[in-house]
């Protein structure tokens, strides 16, 4: 069938044949950790992932990194390869904002499927809090919005998401509590995660009684800013066996991307955003041969509370307009029916894109999530979004090889 155009069925066959999965994870401490560079965090997280896999640094032959918000580099992946002392056969820097970490997994699989590498280290680390600060992140919008037709009107990073949150509440006849509930649940989860930065009690009333930053959002609706690193290693089951890795990999079952807009000016309506999320998820679900109702534990990009609601609905995990009520009813709690971001997410644990979402998905599927463990999950979904709910990527993971 040499003339057939490749599609998701071919990807599925490759993933089945090669049994690609994550075999090592690492995360450093997270929070305010001054006096360390982004490359310090990157290499520390990589060391932990290499040790978790039980392999040698020299076994790694592929490197995928992202970018640093603090230390700008022209060629991030190879700068890091040089720094850590790895001579990779495959290297790539992915810079699609919050969609990056999720897509690292997919890119590693594509590199392995095409014979470019066998053992791919995916790593990200940054000293964002010490290097830029929260105020710097509020102004980071400058990098995401239109420098000519949006930024001069005083848009902030929370403000960009607030514009969509306001419209969401209008269209769904929702209330602020729907947004804030996501933050409350994330805080409950963060309390159970050793390296989470924010563990203080947080109630719905606390949020309702705090001042607005950009209506309808308060500071509690915004992700935290942290220093830290996280990494994971992707390889095949056969290679893992050859390297003597004892633990079973957590397998990649599917992946997809979807794009809505870069600038809010170009966003016609919420349907455009839902469509991009759906496209991303649908490709992943089709590859995995499963539906949005088979996911046992869900990891969504919670850079702001609103993104979580849009993603739950765009992925079809809850019907359109119902995610806010689901959050308010506590259904996103680890013990409820849609366990979400059991590590506390970007809202309370740490902000390193979706790196920790991937790491926690692996811990959950290994059954090593301790107090946060969801009851025997076999599949996990991880979704990342870059820009202002602009660029989406989804992966599906399972504790058994794709069959």
């Amino acid at each position: 069938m040499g003339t057939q155009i490749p599609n998701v069925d071919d990807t599925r066959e490759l993933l089945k044949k090669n049994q690609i999965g994550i075999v090592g994870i690492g995360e450093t401490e997270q929070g305010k950790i001054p006096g360390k560079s982004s490359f310090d965090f990157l290499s520390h997280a990589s060391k932990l992932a290499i040790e978790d896999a039980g392999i040698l640094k020299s076994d790694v032959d592929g490197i995928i990194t992202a970018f640093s918000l603090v230390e700008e580099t022209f060629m991030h992946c190879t700068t890091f390869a040089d720094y850590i002392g790895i001579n990779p056969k495959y290297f790539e820097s992915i810079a699609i904002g919050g969609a990056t970490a999720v897509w690292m997994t997919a890119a590693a699989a594509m590199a392995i499927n095409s014979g470019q590498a066998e053992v791919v280290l995916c790593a990200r680390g940054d000293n964002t809090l010490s290097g830029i600060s929260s105020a710097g992140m509020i102004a980071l919008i400058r990098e995401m919005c239109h420098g000519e037709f949006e930024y001069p009107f005083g848009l902030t990073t929370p403000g960009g998401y607030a514009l969509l949150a306001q419209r969401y509440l209008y269209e769904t006849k929702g209330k602020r509590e729907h947004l804030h509930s996501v933050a409350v649940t994330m805080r409950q989860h963060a309390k159970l995660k050793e390296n989470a930065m924010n563990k203080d009690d947080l109630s719905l009333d606390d949020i309702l009684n705090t001042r607005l930053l950009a209506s309808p959002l308060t500071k509690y609706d915004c992700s935290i800013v942290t220093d830290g690193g996280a990494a994971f290693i992707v390889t095949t089951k056969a290679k893992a066996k050859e390297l003597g890795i004892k633990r079973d990999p957590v397998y990649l079952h599917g992946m997809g991307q979807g794009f809505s807009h870069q600038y809010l000016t170009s966003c016609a309506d919420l349907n455009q955003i839902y469509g991009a999320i759906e496209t991303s998820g649908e490709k992943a679900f089709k590859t995995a041969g499963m539906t949005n109702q088979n996911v046992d534990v869900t990891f969504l990009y919670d850079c702001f509370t609103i993104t979580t609601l849009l993603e739950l609905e765009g992925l079809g995990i809850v019907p359109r307009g119902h995610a806010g009520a689901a959050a308010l009813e506590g259904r996103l709690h680890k013990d409820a029916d849609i366990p979400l971001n059991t590590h506390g997410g970007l809202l309370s644990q740490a902000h390193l894109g979706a790196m920790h979402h991937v790491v926690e998905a692996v811990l959950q599927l290994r059954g090593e999530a301790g107090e946060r463990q969801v009851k025997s999950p076999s599949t996990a979904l991880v979704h990342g979004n870059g820009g202002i709910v602009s660029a989406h990527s989804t992966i599906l993971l399972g504790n058994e090889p794709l069959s």
Partner: protein
Amino acid sequence: MSEEKIEYQKPLPDFRPETKPFWDGTKQHKLLLPKCKETGKVFFYPRAISPFPESVNRDFEWVESTGKGKVWTYSVHYMGPTRAYKGEVYVVALIELHDGVKMMSNIVECDPESVTIGMEVEVVFEDATEEVTFAKFKPVK
């Protein structure tokens, strides 16, 4: 010599050369929109290629907008991106012009907390510097 004006401290547009007709228009207090000569449709933001899926046309004419539209969404900002906004409460909004395009701007000349989605607004021009005039919007009375 003209009176010395307080220097404008807020962010100014990062111009791309291809948008010059737009800014020349606002300077004359006209809201001009680029119109694709192939599809006959107006679009926003201005750029050097037609954004419509069916077209790679690079020829445009500039047509004057009605300057009227409604608020598609908004956010009252209680904290701005730079020090120049300190103490200011202002509204950032996406306005759906009756011409069929969306623009980001500020809703001015009203209580920020009185803005609502669907509110009818019209353009007002704010001269920020010698070079830059912004198209902003105020509620239609």
